[in-house]
């Protein structure tokens, strides 16, 4: 699903965020990305959907060559990938249903198909009954559910999440994690940067630890590995 070979990323300000990364992630895996602040986790994540371009090295996502991908082809890559953020990135003027439908409308999906799929994912994340409510009327956890619904409504092969529980209380974080587990069970690859030690240590999955732009540890069913 995801292959990186000697991927190196230097930002225009001279900071080297990834310093020769080698990694392989298979279809259906659930992977945590951990490490201290500034280690390069977000940069690593952004490479996946070509928000950032590798400075050198080889990289493939779902068979697409990221390093040489033309700007005009980036939309095709993004349609294969769902993305979830710490701050949800919902549109405040659209209600729950519209926020999710938006992702399909802008890629010109058929209206009947949009309706069918949006209702289905809202059911999956448990928000069908709040479809007409607006983001400001929802709790943080519910907003994150909406953004997760939006990320999977196009049936992506991989969902990428950058600290999706970073803004949520522990209770709500567990709910959100259970939702990711459920999505993963249906065969979707999950790649998640997180600082949440309890979760990583109890919902065991592969852990990739990054420090200074390098993978320092890569263990299946590993633990978080950093103190508090």
């Amino acid at each position: 699903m995801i292959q990186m070979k000697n991927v190196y990323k230097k930002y225009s300000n001279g900071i080297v965020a990834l310093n020769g990364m080698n990694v392989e992630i298979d279809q259906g895996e659930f992977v945590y990305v951990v490490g201290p602040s500034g280690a390069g986790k977000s940069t690593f994540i952004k490479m996946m959907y070509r928000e950032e371009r590798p400075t050198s090295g080889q990289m493939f996502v779902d068979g697409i060559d990221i390093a040489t991908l033309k700007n005009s082809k980036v939309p095709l890559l993004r349609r294969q990938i769902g993305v979830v953020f710490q701050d949800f990135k919902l549109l405040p003027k659209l209600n729950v249903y519209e926020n999710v439908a938006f992702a399909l409308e802008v890629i010109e999906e058929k209206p009947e198909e949009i309706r069918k799929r949006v209702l289905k994912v809202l059911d999956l994340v448990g928000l069908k009954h709040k479809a007409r409510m607006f983001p400001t009327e929802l709790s943080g956890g519910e907003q994150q559910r909406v953004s997760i619904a939006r990320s999977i409504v196009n049936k992506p092969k991989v969902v990428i999440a950058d600290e999706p529980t970073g803004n949520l209380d522990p209770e709500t974080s567990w709910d959100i994690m259970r939702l990711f587990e459920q999505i993963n069970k249906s065969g979707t690859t999950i790649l998640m940067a997180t600082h949440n030690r309890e979760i990583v240590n109890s919902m065991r999955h592969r852990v990739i630890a990054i420090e200074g732009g390098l993978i320092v540890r890569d263990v299946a069913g590993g633990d978080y590995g950093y103190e508090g």
Partner: protein
Amino acid sequence: MKARTLGRHFRESLKSLGRNGWMTFASVSAVTVTLLLVGVFVLIMMNLNKIADDVENDVEMKVFIALETGQEDIDRLENEISVLPGVESVDFSTKEEELTDLILNFGDDFSLYEQNNPLFDVFYVKSIDPQQTEKVAGEISKIDQIEKVEFGAGKIEKLFNVLNTGRNVGLVLILALLFTAMFLISNTIRITIVARRHEIEIMKLVGATNWFVRIPFILEGMWLGLLGSIIPIGLVAALYYNVTVYAEPRLKNEIFQLLEFSPFIYQVSALILLMGIFIGVWGSFMSIRKFLRV
């Protein structure tokens, strides 16, 4: 592109017009002023061109006979001129007939000259070929007892000077206005882009194509240009209608005519409309390139 998508883009672009309120008004006003000047400029320049052409193509010369020339000499001169190569016809007109004409065309103010007519007896000489007029005029002016020869080309030299100066001044003015209008439009579009940056970010994240993201902004620019062309088209058409109605009877006896209201005014209207759209679309492209990064 699907019709449904196009409908969505249209709705988005129209919504932005309302949301940007004053900026929309300022942009449309700038386009209006610009296109109004462009329109009037085109009316004037095209008509001056037409007049220059008409005058240039005129084959008639006015040959002034020296004062105190007797009837016998006049008859001789008429013969002499009519046998010159390139001459088609020669018509004699007395100074009394000339004055009657003048009074007819320019009003009774001239009737006070009836006591003491200052005009010359003249021949109206036509050359066969407009290209030959200047040469024939030269031949005729060599003849004794001919005071002077007037013909189109002499008169239009002045006109061409006016034409050139007018064109240069007008072009500079219009270019400056075009840039102002485009700048205002690109600013309006920038405001829309900033207002919708979250929406754009999400569109791009979920895989909307670059054109899908761009089109609403291009359409918004197009509306600004289109709205700005309405008043200029109306005013220019009304203005030119009145000019032609006023000028037509007064130019009846002249060798030159203004361009006919139709189809000229439709061509000018189309030009104004196209320029409006061009300004609008170009203005929004400037912002898209700078602020959208798609």
